[in-house]
């Protein structure tokens, strides 16, 4: 390892990927045009729930430029499987979740507006789109199930094999202990909460381009996706029955994901199925209205949460009842988000001794709901941090004080909901956040605002998240149908430059920079000598991809382990050449040296010796310098932090402005602070978008999406997001060699509760629903008066 003065670790290294993005040289899926390219347009259901009576494709087939039109019946006739869900959840009675068939193109019935009904392939997109309008579909419209809270009582059924529209009724924790604690509690705080439904809106629409190669009966799929190996596995093994060895999935530059590009979608599956039949490559890029209809949505929970306390405000037990909307079909991670990634996080930063959570997941005639930035953990944090603030109000304690009374202070700490926090210092982040937010000066600011007729409020959110998914054995016990390790390969070239292949995927996170910093540091070579390759199953050995803030903690660790194998082999090569014992070779600053002497070889000299093995221990070692590693973490990582938000409300209009937003996070060690700050800022903007602006709205009767464009769905603009004050505190993760925890989702997890806590503090009410639009705030003020 290099000495710290030269180390790129902890440096604000400017991103290596930026030049191509800044000059228009990025290569996103839609930028790729293959020889013989054709285009697809999908016919989508205009109804939330309907029986397909008849489809006539003849007029479309006769349209100019059209090459093929396929329906669900065509695909089903070839024995294609159902799009699978990756996580099996059991109800509390032990029965498995209901997993209705999820066809690639609808068969018999459509179950949400936007569901695929047919695919039209043509010489160009305009011809495909023109022809798609000529596909005649006769529907018998059925009653739609739309609302989350009442879905179980609806008369209509989304799936005949899911009675009461219930997918599962999952519970977690010690119910008897919780009931006993509530029976003897001095005080109880209770909140009814809605976690509003969101539409992710990565700025690059989803896109795919599938090509069949006749010469070797194989496929290449370019797709805007966060985890190409998982995409390949699910599509090949579960749906299309293609050997994985015959499928190469490439996720080139990807323009943001936020979860929405994790999943196996029907569109790219249909393209792969069709390309062999058409005999030419087929491309599809979502129009934005398709993104609104057909990218998996996020959140959509209705919850009642209660906390039992003693007379000093110590938390004794927590009871949570949630109804979670999974939409019309179970998407890839849909069942894990409101359970494993939610219920296990309800301890937050607190020593609550007993927690019980029950989650009823319901099917509705809406777009499938799955992971969106934070995935379950924002929902959990919103419940915990809103409830804790309510506890403070019930107990008439300062919000910071009630948190301090209940903070976990000793580690490792086993929560009553199944996690073991390895490290943390929650008071340290709270102290720093309060200092930066000048909490001491708040009463004066509030009084000054009052003189101007304005309402000022302060709100906290002390979040925790479980990142670095995940120990495979634990995930397996919890229902995961996949492992959750990560893979890395380090290929040293004869000249000493290095190519690193990672199973993680970067779609904005800057892996090409951060991972290169890690490798350059460990090998003691210039960062420019390190290339990072990701997003291609044809080049990267394996991978589980990027989600759950896992890239550096899991993917980075796999790379470190491969690098360490390189160094170990390098020492043996150096020992042979330098005629020393293996154990006498030290490696530092990119040099192999015989301890205590000036006899040394540079990293490049050892690399050359490995590939030109004229003087090489061929009896003991293979030539070459190329190593793989798979890393399966032993625990989750637990990033945590304290956010403090200060708002001012104009009671005349309900307009709320964020006067200050302070975020102090503990991500463990930080490789590139510039990139980490960018992740937090972006996460906070998405969290504030949820809290202030964003709401997916369906017509409650017809199930039509009413917020189906950027004109109708309010995404945060530059004028909506305040300046954010950031700092960090560090307790290194104890179980990975980098000591890192993950930072990609924290902002989206921690910020909504801080904002709503500040707003309800300003207005003096218990709850204001997200998004807290001026109208809602104004109504709350009127109701109070």
């Amino acid at each position, binding site marked *: 390892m290099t000495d710290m003065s030269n180390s790129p670790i902890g440096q604000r290294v*400017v*991103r290596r*990927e*930026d*030049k*191509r*993005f*800044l*000059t*228009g*040289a*990025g*290569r*996103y899926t*839609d*930028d790729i*045009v293959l020889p013989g390219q054709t285009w697809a347009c999908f016919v989508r259901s205009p109804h939330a729930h309907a029986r397909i009576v008849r489809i006539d494709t003849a007029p479309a087939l006769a349209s100019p430029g059209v090459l093929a039109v396929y329906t669900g019946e065509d695909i089903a006739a070839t024995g294609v499987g159902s799009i699978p869900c990756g996580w099996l959840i059991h109800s509390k009675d032990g029965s498995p979740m209901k997993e209705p068939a999820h066809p690639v193109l609808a068969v018999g019935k459509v179950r949400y507006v936007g569901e695929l009904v047919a695919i039209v392939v043509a010489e160009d997109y*305009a011809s495909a789109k023109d022809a798609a309008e000529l596909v005649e579909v006769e529907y018998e419209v059925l009653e739609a199930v739309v609302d989350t809270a009442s879905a179980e009582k609806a008369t209509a059924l989304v799936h005949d094999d899911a009675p009461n529209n219930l997918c599962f009724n999952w519970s977690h924790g010690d119910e008897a202990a919780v009931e006993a604690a509530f029976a003897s509690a001095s005080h109880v705080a209770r909140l009814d909460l809605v976690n509003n439904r969101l539409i992710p*809106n*990565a*700025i*690059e*629409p989803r896109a795919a381009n599938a090509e069949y190669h006749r010469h070797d009966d194989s496929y290449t799929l370019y797709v805007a996706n966060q985890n190409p190996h998982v995409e390949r596995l699910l599509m090949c093994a579960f749906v299309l029955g293609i050997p994985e060895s015959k499928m190469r999935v490439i996720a080139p*530059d*990807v*323009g*943001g994901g*936020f979860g929405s590009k994790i999943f196996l979608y029907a569109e790219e599956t249909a393209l792969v199925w069709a390309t062999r039949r058409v005999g030419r490559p087929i491309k599809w*890029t979502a*129009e*934005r*209205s398709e993104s609104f209809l057909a990218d998996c949505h996020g959140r959509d929970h209705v919850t009642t949460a209660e906390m039992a306390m003693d007379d000093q405000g110590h938390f004794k037990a927590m009871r949570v009842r949630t109804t979670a909307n999974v939409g019309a079909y179970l998407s890839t991670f849909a069942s894990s988000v409101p359970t494993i990634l939610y219920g296990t996080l309800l301890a937050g930063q607190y020593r609550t001794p007993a927690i019980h959570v029950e989650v009823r997941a319901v099917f509705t005639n809406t777009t499938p709901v799955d992971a969106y930035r934070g995935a379950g953990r924002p929902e959990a944090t919103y419940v915990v941090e809103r409830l804790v603030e309510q506890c403070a109000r019930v107990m008439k304690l300062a919000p910071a004080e009630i948190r301090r009374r209940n903070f976990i202070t000793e580690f490792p700490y086993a929560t009553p909901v199944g996690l073991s926090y390895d490290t943390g210092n929650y008071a340290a982040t709270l102290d720093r956040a309060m200092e930066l937010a000048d909490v001491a000066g708040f009463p004066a600011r509030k009084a000054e605002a009052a003189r101007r007729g304005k309402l000022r409020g302060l709100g906290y959110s002390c979040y925790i998240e479980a990142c670095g998914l995940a120990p495979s054995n634990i995930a397996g016990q919890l229902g995961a149908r996949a492992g959750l390790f990560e893979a890395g390969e380090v290929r040293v070239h004869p000249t000493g430059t290095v190519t690193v292949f990672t199973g993680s995927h970067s*779609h*904005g*996170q*800057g892996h090409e920079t951060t991972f290169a910093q890690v490798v350059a540091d460990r090998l003691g070579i210039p960062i420019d000598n390190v290339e990072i390759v990701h997003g291609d199953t044809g080049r990267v050995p394996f991978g589980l991809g990027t989600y759950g803030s896992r890239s550096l903690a899991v993917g980075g660790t796999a790379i470190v382990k491969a690098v360490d194998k390189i160094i170990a082999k390098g020492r043996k090569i150096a020992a042979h050449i330098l005629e020393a014992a293996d154990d006498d070779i030290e490696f530092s600053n990119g040099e192999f040296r015989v301890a205590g002497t000036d006899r040394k070889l540079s990293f490049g000299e050892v690399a050359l010796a490995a590939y030109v093995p004229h003087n090489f221990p061929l009896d003991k070692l293979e030539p070459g310098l190329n190593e793989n590693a798979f890393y399966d973490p032993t625990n989750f990582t637990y990033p945590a932090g304290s956010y403090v938000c200060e708002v001012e409300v104009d009671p005349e209009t309900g307009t709320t402005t964020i006067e200050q937003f302070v975020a102090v996070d503990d991500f463990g060690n930080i490789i590139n602070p*510039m*990139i980490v*700050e*960018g992740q937090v*800022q*972006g*996460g*906070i*903007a*998405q969290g504030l978008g949820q809290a202030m602006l964003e709401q997916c709205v369906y017509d409650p009767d017809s199930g039509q999406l009413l917020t189906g*464009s*950027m*004109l109708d769905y309010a*995404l*945060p*603009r*530059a*004028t909506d*997001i305040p*300046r*954010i004050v950031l700092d960090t505190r560090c307790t290194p993760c104890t179980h990975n060699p980098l000591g890192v925890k993950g930072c990609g989702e924290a*902002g989206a997890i921690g910020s909504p509760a801080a904002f709503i806590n500040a707003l309800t503090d300003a207005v003096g009410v218990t709850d204001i629903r997200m998004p807290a639009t001026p109208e809602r705030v104004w109504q709350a003020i009127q109701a109070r008066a």
Partner: protein
Amino acid sequence: MEQKTVNLTVNGKQTTLAIDPRTLLLQVLREKLGLTGTHQGCDTAQCGACTVHVDGRAIKSCSILALQVDGRSVTTIEGLAQGDELHPVQEAFRECHGLQCGFCTPGMVMSVVALLAENPKPTEAQIREHLEGNICRCTGYQNIVKAVQHAAGVAA
């Protein structure tokens, strides 16, 4: 559909194309000229990823027919840098980490170049106001605003 002829000067290069009259400027740039740095992010002129300059003014190329700019001069993100030397706004985005996934970036940069041509020393409020027509989902705009201030040489 009957083809029409359009004459454009794109990044200083004169070009004549026969196109379907319904072709958008964005489609001509991406599909006919291979200038894929200009991106389509939405269908409603909201996101600004498609922003280019026509005769020096920033416009959204997804919402204008190529025929409407017949005979005019178009600059795309590919035409901004001088060889290997980035335009000061590009350089500022890089130094300030004003981009993450890069998809909105070309439109952001073109929009900012137009802003600074019109108002070389904008206030933070003016910068944020100007950026209302460009959506970024990654950065929370913090470092984009910083990059504009950096490029303009005004204090952050």
